């Protein structure tokens, strides 16, 4: 019997909703069969906790006296985008201080950047603000140096254009020298394989055809209730899928928003990738309403049914070439080793599975207690029938 969002929310309000994490739901389906499990369960919670570079926060710092229309600003020495109205700033996760040596003096360590500023703000630490302006009649001030704290900001909200990648390639290094990538340090000659997904817990792998997730979906974002506000940038539903509907590469993405003032620094973490740069590790939980058996079937997909391609980051990835090294499933990846070209390669994850489990359980508790109601999306994410195709950049002359 199909259920509706309204029916499920009524049960949540009465604290009678049956809520399981995706891990628990898999076990229930194994035990009772899909039909029975789909009937019994109202919501399955999914989650992920991994580095998500396309992240940042909008803040409004309030007006000083006299007023300033900021043209350039720095938070703890990290440049924030000021090309919006007078005292609105956007601090991006991958921005690094201008005096960071980056990779100019050996591979950089990138100890501090925009992601760390965001975590410091959430943690309630004072952050140093420097700003300059050219001055106008209505905004005469030309410079500013002070300390700000999240509690004094008018608004502070995380606004991430691309998070929660549906799936992500396994990174390896075929070359004979160590390489430093956003997928971590990759040792030469297939020395290690790095992956980044919560697999059977990961939100978009449990709703692979976007039947419940879309604009307006209420999510758990870094400890706060947030929302999906659009499909994420580079959203690509057309990626090749396996027989279970699992895209074997990047595919779908979410653009998400949430109140920074309600977040927890344990779940929004400034991150440094050696030789690459800074980023932000983001914790996201997405509830999947079990409206019918088809949605339940996808929500019950297991690690061994979810697979992803292997990509060489020494030569193929930087040069937009496909690697043709096949796919591996998450059960294999989580075993600690995979076989590539007859060689045993140790695996490790950049995304934290234990943290994803923790988030799925927090969200489950929130829903069961009646504090977290589900929202019916205003519009689902673009699906496999989407007319837009994912495009590379063509370098060309004007008019070509």
């Amino acid at each position: 019997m199909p259920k509706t969002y309204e029916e499920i929310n009524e049960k949540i309000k009465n604290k009678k909703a049956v809520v399981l994490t995706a891990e628990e739901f898999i076990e229930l389906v194994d035990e009772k069969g899909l039909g029975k499990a789909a009937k019994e369960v109202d919501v399955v919670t999914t989650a992920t906790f991994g580095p998500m570079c396309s992240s940042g926060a909008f803040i409004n710092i309030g007006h000083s006296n006299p007023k300033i229309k900021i043209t350039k600003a720095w938070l703890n020495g990290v440049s924030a985008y000021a090309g919006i109205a007078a005292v609105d700033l956007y601090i991006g996760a991958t921005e690094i201080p201008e005096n960071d040596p980056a990779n100019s003096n050996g591979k950089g360590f990138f100890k501090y950047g925009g992601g760390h500023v965001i975590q410091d703000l959430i943690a309630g630490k004072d952050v140093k603000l420097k700003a300059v302006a050219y001055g106008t009649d209505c905004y005469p001030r030309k410079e500013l140096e002070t300390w700000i704290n999240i509690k004094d900001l008018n608004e502070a909200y995380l606004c991430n254009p691309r998070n929660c990648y549906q799936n992500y390639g396994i990174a390896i290094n075929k070359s004979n020298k160590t390489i430093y990538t956003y997928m971590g340090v990759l040792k030469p000659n297939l020395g290690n394989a790095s992956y980044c997904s919560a697999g059977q817990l990961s939100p978009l792998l449990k709703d692979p055809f976007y039947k419940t997730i879309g604009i307006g979906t209420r999510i758990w974002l870094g400890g706060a209730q947030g929302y999906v506000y659009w499909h994420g940038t580079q959203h690509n539903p057309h990626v090749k899928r396996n027989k279970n509907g699992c895209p074997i590469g990047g595919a779908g993405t979410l653009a998400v928003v949430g109140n920074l003032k309600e977040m927890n620094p344990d779940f929004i973490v400034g991150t440094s990738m050696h030789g690459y740069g800074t980023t932000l590790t983001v914790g996201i939980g997405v509830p999947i309403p079990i409206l019918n058996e088809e949605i339940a079937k996808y929500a019950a997909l297991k690690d061994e049914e979810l697979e992803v391609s292997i990509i060489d980051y020494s030569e193929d990835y930087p040069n937009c070439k496909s690697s043709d090294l096949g796919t591996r499933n998450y059960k294999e990846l989580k075993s600690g080793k995979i076989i590539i070209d007859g060689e045993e390669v140790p695996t490790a994850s950049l995304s934290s599975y234990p943290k994803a489990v923790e988030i799925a359980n927090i969200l489950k508790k929130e829903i069961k207690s009646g504090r977290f109601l589900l929202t019916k999306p205003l519009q689902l994410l673009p699906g496999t029938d989407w007319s837009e195709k994912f495009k590379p950049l063509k370098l060309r002359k004007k008019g070509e």
Partner: protein
Amino acid sequence: MVTKKLVLKFPKKITEQPIIYKLIKDYNLVFNILKAKVDPDKGGLLVLELSGEDKDYAKGIDYLEKLGVKLQPLEKDITRDEKKCTNCSACIAHCPTGALYIKDRKTMKVEFDKSKCILCEACIPVCPVGAMRVDY
């Protein structure tokens, strides 16, 4: 026979003495230097594996302590900030001895067996959240 990994901290006033030479010659100890950093203005730091007969070893340690060298077992020196660690596992592929490893493939929690740690510091730059630290 005893073999131990030790961290030796030298005060600056004794950095010019041939201490290691004496350990070999007078106390019959065998050593393998894992890490060394000596600055005549600031003092020195030496991480080594020291082996020898029980009696010689005890005398050697006594000699070092009398000189004012601070000694501590190696395992105390690399620490994991448990609050910062997110259990992502980025470190495990870079740990050469398996001191950082996953025991339970269901929970995927990252364990740290300090007795296997050789202080190579490979885990420190690869930890995305700066949870691994060397303390001397």
